């Protein structure tokens, strides 16, 4: 990387060859006004706000697209540039129908801010008053073409970060409009994933989210707090805007982040909406058909009194949420596992989680980290989805897959028993008869690929290289009950791939052997990343990985026998499974601690304890992004809501025990590795 030196506004600025003038300026703290530019998206120089003067060049150059050169002398603040930028702004105002007084984004609008900063107190050009439409067909997202400045940020984020490529441009010049799916209305689009990324990056009031427009503008908010989304295993970082103690909107972080600062439809809508749900505000004890309010002391000593006899008979259990933070899970584990030595402790997603734990364990004991950060999918040239539906399970992972395939041309293979989760962009789709895929198939495939790799160092001639393995591939196909040609195609893709990655869905975890077999294929096809094996396990919730080595049971116990006491902690964000509810219902005495009045769970409770909601807690999550991420308190809890450590300490006192604090946080074990992934050995039973 060659270092270059530029003079920008008289300041010596150093950069690297290949960087644009704008990038060098930003690195050196020189501010150049921009509008269409967003870090992380392809710069297109559409708005002309970032123009600069370069000495010995008669033209004004857009700094976002002009490569910086050694020795360049750049001016960014001359009167000529200021007037030119102001002219650009006036033309933008005259071209479409920007009327700030009835725009929901006034105050948040970048066009407005720039115009005011450039002293635009009138517009010298006649307005066009062209009659553009307002596309309000989407239930959540509104697209008002009247306010569009054609910066194409929405189109770029949709294509480059979400990978949906729903939005594009139609027509030319001033008649150009952003359009969904080759001319459909946004609400009719087949490809839109309703993530709201387009609205998040829109600099004007063109694309707005109804929910947020009514809750308030960013500029009206008192605070913006960073935290982590609890709704799926990705754990996207986001910024929550707070206005008078309530959350008005959530937005992803910068577009330069690996995830492009996107949130999925779940995080975008469910998080702010959940702040309006009915809360459990005080401890309550069942009284006939209803409840009566109680003090914490009374409620907890009642719980302790009911717990003791059940515990002594071995008929007490605890069912916990893996949306709890590491700290909360450590408390639970300290109380129920270390303190009380209870067997019957588990998480709601225990069954899926156990499948992954057991399936990945043979590799973990080798000292290898058997998974990689989810965003490494973006670096992969061959993605294999195994029994996964990422758009449902972890939508941002689906974005990674789409972007890798559509933008970078990665191959996409799907192995499952059902539908292809990425219809239209999948290269090879193997669907197997039955309800679960057979691990034997994956193991046979792994063996074949491993021997292919051993025999053929140059995989460029994949087809010919496959010849001697026709038979074993045909056997794989027989096991799978599928066409041998398709299996050959998969093998050919995998031996040619430089960095394959395997996305394992929750369905794969129904059988731990399937997980192990899929990892075997990953090892055979050399899916090695710096941080671990090229496997992305789609565990269920925000902190499933943290739950894996704290409270997750080694075997399933819920429903095996009717219990006398069950403590249930639910964050109320994910609906409970029917069979679990049935088991809870059959328990004689149920304590439910939850932030929300979650039905039907609260109806089953004999004692109801309030808990802080997701935005009232802090702590850490172990995410499949391979990071320990921090949750912050966005709005402090009100009233009788108490933190979990206070409640559990009091309960422990009533039970006459103390809570053991673990020396190592749950994440450290999850992310640990002693051995490079390339040293991993296949595990074939």
């Amino acid at each position, binding site marked *: 990387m060659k270092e270059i030196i530029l003079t920008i506004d008289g300041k010596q600025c150093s950069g690297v060859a290949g960087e644009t003038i704008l990038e060098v300026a930003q690195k050196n703290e020189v501010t150049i006004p921009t509008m269409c530019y967003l870090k992380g998206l392809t710069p297109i120089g559409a708005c002309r706000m970032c123009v600069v003067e370069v000495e010995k060049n008669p033209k004004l150059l857009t700094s976002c697209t002009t490569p910086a050169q050694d020795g360049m002398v750049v001016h960014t603040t001359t009167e000529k540039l200021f007037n030119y930028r102001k002219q650009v702004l006036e033309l933008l105002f005259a071209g479409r129908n920007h009327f700030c007084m009835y725009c929901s984004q006034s105050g948040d609008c970048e066009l407005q801010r720039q115009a005011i900063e450039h002293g635009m107190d009138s517009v010298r050009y006649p307005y066009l*008053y062209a009659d553009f439409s307002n596309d309000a067909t989407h239930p959540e997202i509104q697209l008002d073409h009247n306010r569009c400045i054609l910066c194409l940020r929405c189109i770029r984020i949709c294509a480059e970060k979400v990978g949906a490529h729903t939005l594009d441009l139609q027509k030319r010049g001033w008649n150009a409009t952003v359009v969904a799916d080759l001319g459909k209305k946004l609400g009719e689009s087949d490809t839109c994933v309703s993530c709201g990324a387009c609205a998040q990056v829109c600099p004007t009031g063109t694309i707005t989210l109804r929910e947020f427009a009514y809750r308030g503008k960013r500029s009206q908010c008192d605070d913006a707090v960073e935290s982590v989304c609890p709704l799926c295993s990705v754990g996207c970082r986001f910024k929550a805007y707070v206005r008078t103690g309530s959350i008005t909107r959530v937005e992803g972080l910068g577009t330069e982040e690996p995830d492009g600062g996107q949130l999925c439809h779940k995080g975008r809508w469910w998080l702010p909406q959940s702040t309006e749900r009915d809360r459990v505000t005080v401890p309550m004890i069942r009284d006939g058909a209803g409840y009566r309010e109680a003090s914490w002391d009374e409620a907890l000593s009642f719980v302790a009194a009911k717990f003791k006899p059940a515990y002594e008979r071995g008929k007490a259990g605890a069912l916990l949420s893996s949306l709890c933070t590491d700290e909360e899970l450590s408390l639970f584990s300290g109380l129920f596992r270390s303190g009380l030595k209870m067997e019957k402790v588990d998480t709601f997603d225990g069954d899926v989680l156990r499948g992954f734990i057991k399936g990945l364990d043979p590799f973990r004991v080798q000292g290898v980290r058997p998974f990689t950060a989810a965003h490494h999918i973006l670096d992969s040239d061959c993605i294999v989805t195994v029994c996964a539906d990422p758009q449902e399970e972890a939508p941002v992972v689906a974005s990674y897959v789409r972007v890798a395939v559509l933008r970078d041309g990665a191959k996409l293979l799907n192995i499952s028993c059902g539908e292809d989760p990425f219809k239209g962009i999948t290269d090879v789709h193997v669907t197997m008869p039955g309800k679960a895929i057979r691990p034997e198939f994956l193991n046979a495939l792994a063996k074949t690929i491993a021997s292919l790799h051993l025999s053929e160092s140059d995989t460029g001639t994949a087809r010919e290289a496959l010849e001697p393995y026709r038979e074993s591939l045909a056997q794989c196909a027989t096991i799978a009950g599928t066409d041998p040609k398709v299996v050959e195609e998969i093998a050919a893709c995998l031996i040619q791939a430089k960095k394959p990655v395997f996305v394992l869905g929750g369905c794969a975890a129904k059988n731990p052997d399937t997980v192990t077999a899929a990892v075997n294929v990953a090892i055979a096809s050399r899916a090695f990343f710096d941080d671990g094996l090229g496997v992305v396990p789609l565990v269920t919730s925000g902190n499933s990985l943290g739950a894996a080595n704290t409270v997750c049971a080694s075997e399933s116990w819920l429903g095996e026998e009717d219990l006398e006491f069950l403590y249930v902690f639910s964050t109320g964000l994910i609906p409970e499974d029917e069979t679990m509810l049935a088991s809870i219902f059959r328990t004689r005495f149920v304590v439910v601690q939850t932030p929300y009045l979650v039905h039907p769970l609260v109806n089953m409770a004999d004692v109801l304890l309030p808990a802080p909601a997701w935005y009232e807690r802090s702590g850490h999550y172990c995410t499949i992004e391979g990071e320990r991420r921090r949750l912050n308190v966005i709005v402090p809890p009100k009233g009788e809501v108490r933190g979990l450590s206070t409640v559990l300490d009091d309960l422990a006192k009533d039970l006459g025990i103390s809570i053991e604090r673990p020396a190592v946080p749950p994440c450290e074990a999850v992310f640990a590795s002693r051995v490079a992934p390339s040293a991993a050995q296949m595990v074939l039973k």
Partner: protein
Amino acid sequence: MAKAKIATVWLEACAGCHMSFLDIDERLADLVEKVDILYSPVVDGKDIPQVDVGVIDGALGNEEEVHLAKEMRERCKILVGWGDCAVFGGINCMRNFLPPEKVLEEAYTDTKSTVNPEKVIPGEDLPALLPKAIPIDHVVKCDVYIPGCPPDADTILWVFQEILEGRVPKVPANMMRYD
């Protein structure tokens, strides 16, 4: 020192800008020490007199408004445009997407809440609509623009104070607003 003479006129707009002017509150008492408001919706005056500062609040939407704007321009030394309507056209521009006849039909016969079985549209006794509602500077030269819907009282006062000091001010970014 003689007091500066001021005239303000309310054209196609709501009363917001003049309300914002009154929001100067107790400082209005200091201001009228230095100025005479000779013509304004808030004082009684029949014709626009010769003044030092003329103020137009509102866009131009009909012939009478164009006439008043021109008269104001002729009779003042410095012309100030108050508010988004005068500066940009403002909310009046909502009608610019329809021809004027349609606008009248929409207003007097077509709206659901209107009862007008004879479909009477006022005509000769009202000034004719311009083809489009326009900002004042499409017809007269404007010296000071104060955008805002409405502009803050502080900004309105600041502009008067600057003019009284003998300057023709330009609203700085920290005082400017469009909403």
